[in-house]
């Protein structure tokens, strides 16, 4: 990408010239200089803390004093892999995260399609603002509102009973968590899907119609593949945010609703067993690493 035209008149000014010459002579200097501050932050703060956490996972604590014993061992990982409880908890967490992601895709796609392709410009703006607005209402307040809706004498049961249906006692169950998670992360799925759909040129759709494709065919063969990166980008958020959450299971979950995050949190808080918490924390990291690699293949990073 050579951008300097030959024979360009030399600019005025003294000291600035050698620097620009440097940038021209070594074009890779520009991205490196730009990248240094953020990379420094990332490596020295973020990565260093993650590495520290990983190292801690191989340590253990002294049961008397709860101080960390810096003796290398893989006991923590062995416990996680052998005890069936942790497998159940990990399975529940990942499973619900996947279910929430699918639910949000189903809920958001028609809305995003409507916003991107059917609505007028003004309605488009209004709807976009309407989708963004719930993000400004505190996450905690919104989850708490759902407790009000789902509990034994809440809005849901009251509505069902007033039209003669039996009460659906889904308060403090995994079903309740599924509902609440799908609700909370919905804007995170709608926005990238909408952005991706908006980028699909109308001319492509018209061309498909000209070639004889019916509406469903067009949607399946043209729109969906082009919207896929956006959908996958949104799924990164819904999946990872559900995978790591511990607050919603505490507020809305019941018995048998523990998530990976809850066990990590209780090990950090109660037992001060940071090594075990760190070991367990590597599980969602590994899951997300796999997910992100797959997402990158599907082009999601271009659509974030």
């Amino acid at each position: 990408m050579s951008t300097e035209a030959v024979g360009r008149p030399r600019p005025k000014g003294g000291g600035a010239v050698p620097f620009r010459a440097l940038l021209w002579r070594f074009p890779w200097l520009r991205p490196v200089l730009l990248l240094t501050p953020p990379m420094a932050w990332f490596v020295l703060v973020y990565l260093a803390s993650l590495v520290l956490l990983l190292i801690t996972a191989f340590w253990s604590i002294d049961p008397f004093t709860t101080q960390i014993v810096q003796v290398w061992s893989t006991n923590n990982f062995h416990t996680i892999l052998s005890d069936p409880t942790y497998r159940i908890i990990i399975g529940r967490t990942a499973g619900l995260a996947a279910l929430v992601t699918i639910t949000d895709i189903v809920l958001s796609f028609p809305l995003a399609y409507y916003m991107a392709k059917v609505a007028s410009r003004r309605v488009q703006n209004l709807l976009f603002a309407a989708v963004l607005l719930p993000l400004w209402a505190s996450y905690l307040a919104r989850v708490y509102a759902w407790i009000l809706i789902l509990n034994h004498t809440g809005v849901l049961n009251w509505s069902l009973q007033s039209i003669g249906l039996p009460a659906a006692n889904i308060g403090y169950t995994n079903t309740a968590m599924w509902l609440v998670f799908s609700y909370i992360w919905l804007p995170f799925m709608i926005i990238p899907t909408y952005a991706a759909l908006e980028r699909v040129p109308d001319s492509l759709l018209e061309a498909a119609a000209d070639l004889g494709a019916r509406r469903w065919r067009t949607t399946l063969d043209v729109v969906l593949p082009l919207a896929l990166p956006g959908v996958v980008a949104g799924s990164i958020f819904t999946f990872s945010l559900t995978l790591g959450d511990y607050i919603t299971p505490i507020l809305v979950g019941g018995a048998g609703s523990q998530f990976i995050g809850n066990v990590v949190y209780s090990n950090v808080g109660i037992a001060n067993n940071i090594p075990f918490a760190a070991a367990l924390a590597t599980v969602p990291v590994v899951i997300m690493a796999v997910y992100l690699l797959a997402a990158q293949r599907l082009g999601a990073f271009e659509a974030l």
Partner: protein
Amino acid sequence: MSIGFWSGLALRAWAVLVLLFLFIPILLIFFYAFNTSNIESWPIPGLTTKWFVSTWNDPDVRTALLLSVQAGLAATAIALVLGSCAAFAINRTSFFGRDAVSLLFVLPLALPGIITGIALNAFFSFGGVTLSLWTIIVGHATFCMVVVYNNVLARLRRTQGSLIEAAMDLGANGFQVFRDVTLPLISTAVVAGAMLAFALSFDEVIVTTFTAGAQSTLPIWIFGQIRHGILLPEVNVVVSFVILVTIIPVVIAARLTGGGGTARVPAAR
């Protein structure tokens, strides 16, 4: 694009239902700001405006709100500078390991908050750093940076490189190109990124729990109130206030960016 009558109707109905789904809990939050009882139960026992007065006079609310705004602004400022730098560097350059770097930049948002939280907490305590407003800002800036980076990068990808080259052909030096051509092109993406970053920081509770000392940001205050249970309607008042205050900026941001910052893309490139 033409769409059949029934399909259009179905789409509209679906959109309405999803929007109802999104907003009914928020309407409940508004409604319960007027609750006479401090216990949330359905149906609502009675209505009163006394909580508005008590929230206005509550010093803890003011402190928490102020702290959240301060942390948000500082984190967003840092994120703007560092995130944009990174986006410029990644865009249109290719070096071996670029994919690894872009993967790295997604981590703070992709990894669960509790991991970032306990990692930073352990890091600070090993480094002997006392938890304070600054540690909160460090935690927030890390994921805010990613949000700004994503937005700016997405917009840079959509800008035509030929515009930059044309400007240079016309004699502009690097700085002038940046100021007069690039910046206006990405300005709306920067604003959108900043707004989203501020929103994330403002509502963040998990990482903040682990990086705050004696300080209470607004979400931490809300969490405390949910446990206390005595001043629950004050939470509803504060949240309603925040929603109302942010309606205007959000509408403006929507108009500037995704709502149609660029017209529907004409022909595919």
